[in-house]
């Protein structure tokens, strides 16, 4: 491929991955590349990033696509001479042993270069999927990770880090992060090799994950969840800033004639500046009722985190969790509490609750209405969180209807795509007739919704 073809393919792949690269920006990238020297790949990356990536959360996606179109090496590279698996990817016991030994050392030392080389080797040796002809062979990160299983090195790595003076929790965290990083290196290298074999356009579309704020809660993996959790606080901060600003703008009330006239005397009776009466802000009580069963636990947790981070925007927040019984968790939301602690305690309660069986919405709604008759009143906004999958039990539609009728507003946030509503045991369509059902599959939608209701 010529350089220009690569460029065009690259920009198209970025668009396909959700970055809105305009024509002008594509041209900017070319002018930028004309101004730099090409021998350093990181320079090329930075020039592209400066001209094409205008939202930081998209950076991960950008890097993944860049690595496919501008690979760091071809084949197994110089360091990997003689790495190709002889006679197929059959288990070669001693090789695997030696490899894992090297990996353990590199992980303990945090040696980035060595880890990168080992990732290449892991894919070359343990991830090859020979095909029946040219262009049919492939590379699997999954297979190589299964065989190398870096997760089993966890304990050993933690022990090593403890010896370096970290305490237990820090060592756990650091070890988890290093192993996660190595996993990503292997995945990246498998993508690179598949792209080499089948062409980059083949890979970019399938294997590159959407940006974290557009990733479905229900599709998130462990490492994604960690990344999402880190996004919540900045998201809350952005929302809070936006809210204060909008409240200020709205606060400009009707014209204060007397003050305006008085001020105009300084300018010969010409009213150059107007004065306004302050407007009374009104605030809502928020009541959150949330399904925390296994299928939606992550979604519930993120929503609660966001609500908690924004609690000052409401005059009161009460939160209840349920699987089939209802538990009030408002206490965790006490003012001045530390967000991390609250979330840890909530997560604890949630994981406990989630152990018991499956959601029974009808029962939970009925119990809620019975046990907390005062919770929902004319000043409250009711927010139900859940997928509405009720395991075919009674739905208690009239109870929900009554609750919704008493509240000023009522919404139901559903982490599933609308095309699944009402399929299988989902009662989302039926509940949707009683309260308005809102699709909320990712952080971006969650942020939009929360902003709308405050």
């Amino acid at each position, binding site marked *: 491929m010529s350089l220009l073809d690569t460029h065009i393919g690259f920009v198209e792949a970025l668009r396909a991955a959700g970055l*809105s690269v*305009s024509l*002008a*920006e594509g041209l*900017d990238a070319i*002018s*930028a590349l004309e*101004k*730099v020297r090409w021998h350093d790949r*990181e*320079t090329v990356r*930075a*020039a592209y*990033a*400066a*001209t094409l*990536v*205008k*939202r*930081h959360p998209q*950076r991960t996606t950008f890097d993944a696509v860049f690595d496919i179109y501008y690979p760091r090496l071809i084949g197994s590279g110089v360091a990997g001479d003689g790495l190709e698996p002889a006679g197929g990817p059959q288990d070669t016991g001693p090789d695997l042993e030696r490899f894992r030994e090297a990996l353990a050392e590199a992980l303990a030392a945090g040696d980035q270069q060595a880890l990168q080389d080992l990732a290449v080797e892991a894919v070359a040796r343990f991830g090859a999927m020979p095909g029946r002809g040219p262009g049919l062979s492939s590379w699997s990160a999954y297979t190589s990770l299964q065989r190398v299983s870096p997760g089993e090195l966890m304990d050993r790595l933690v022990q090593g880090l403890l010896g370096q003076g970290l*305490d237990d929790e*820090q060592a756990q*965290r650091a070890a988890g992060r290093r192993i996660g990083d190595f996993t990503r290196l292997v995945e990246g290298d498998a993508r690179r090799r598949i792209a080499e074999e089948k062409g980059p356009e083949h890979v970019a579309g399938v294997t590159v994950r959407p940006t974290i704020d557009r990733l479905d809660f229900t599709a998130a993996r462990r490492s994604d969840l960690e990344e999402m959790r*880190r996004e919540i*606080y*900045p998201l809350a*901060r*952005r929302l809070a*800033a*936006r809210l204060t*600003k909008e409240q*200020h*703008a709205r606060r400009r009330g009707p014209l204060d004639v007397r003050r305006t006239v008085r001020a105009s005397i300084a*300018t*010969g009776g*010409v009213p*150059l500046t107007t004065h306004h009466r302050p407007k009374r802000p009104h605030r809502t009580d928020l009541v959150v009722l949330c399904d925390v069963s296994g299928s939606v636990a992550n979604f519930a947790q993120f929503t609660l985190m966001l609500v908690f981070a924004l609690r000052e925007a409401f005059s009161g927040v009460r939160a209840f969790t349920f699987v089939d019984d209802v538990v009030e968790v408002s206490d965790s939301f006490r003012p*001045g509490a*530390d*967000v*991390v602690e609250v979330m840890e305690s909530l997560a604890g309660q949630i994981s406990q609750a989630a152990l018991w069986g499956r959601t029974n919405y009808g029962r939970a709604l009925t119990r809620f209405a019975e046990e907390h008759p005062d919770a929902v009143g004319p000043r409250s906004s009711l927010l139900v969180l859940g997928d509405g999958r009720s395991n075919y039990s009674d739905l208690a539609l009239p109870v929900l209807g009554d609750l919704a009728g008493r509240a000023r507003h009522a919404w139901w946030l559903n982490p599933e795509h609308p095309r699944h509503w009402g399929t299988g045991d989902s009662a989302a369509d039926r509940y949707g007739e009683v309260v308005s059902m809102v699709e909320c599959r990712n952080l971006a939608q969650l942020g939009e919704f929360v902003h709308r209701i405050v």
Partner: protein
Amino acid sequence: MTTWFESPEAAAARLRETGYLTDDATALTAYLAGALEKPLLVEGPAGVGKTELAKAVARATGAELVRLQCYEGLDEARALYEWNYKKQLLRIQAAGGDQSWSETHDDIFTEEFLLTRPLLGAIRRDEPTVLLVDEVDKTDIEVEGLLLEVLSDFQVTIPELGTVTATRRPFVVLTSNASRELSEAVKRRCLFLHLDYPDAERERAIVTSQVPRLDDKVVAQLVDVVVRLRDLELKKAPSIAESVDWARTLVALQVGDLDEATVARTLGVVLKHSSDQQRAARELKLATR
């Protein structure tokens, strides 16, 4: 046309000479902003050197810094230009009935009554200029429209006076804490740089260059603690500015070893919220006072 920096390497070197230590991506992007004459939008958390970058570019290139500090409610009259109404009124009143309106009009819409604000000021200057539009995310969306107009053609039309076109394009830096998304249109116009906390090595270099009297060993200990603090999801994570403040404090206290007791005693310099301090003390397992 001004040559701001000859190459990315030159940008890094000259910024370093003025005390600003960049990583490769920052040096490259600063170079590109000059070479392509495109505004540079720098985004990132507070205290990572966004504002300082603009100042450093000015110092490194001998340009003058013109700064537009954004705030909620900033408007065209404060950002671009404004007629001096009070003075105009006085002139009209002084003229009494002796002048026709058109004469008066020609009189009062002249340079003498024009109050130049930073955006217009930067465009009119003949000398090399760095225009810093600081904390754009604090303004209202209308100001972005204004910026877009000015940054597209580097010209401003004043109906009563005509069009002012930049004879020499300023080097424009916009900064944002990302408290809200800026409009797509503004972003398209700009090169984008996300500044984050530096890696430990660069942070040590920054601290050492700003507080040369602090012992290397203590600098390393300090940066170690700061890096760990940033991992804690605090309300306000310590930035470079706090590292530097802390280093100054330690010099003043003549600390030769940053042990746990000293960390506990001086944590207030680094963390401003008391809940953050408590959390940090707990996580770092410090004996609290």
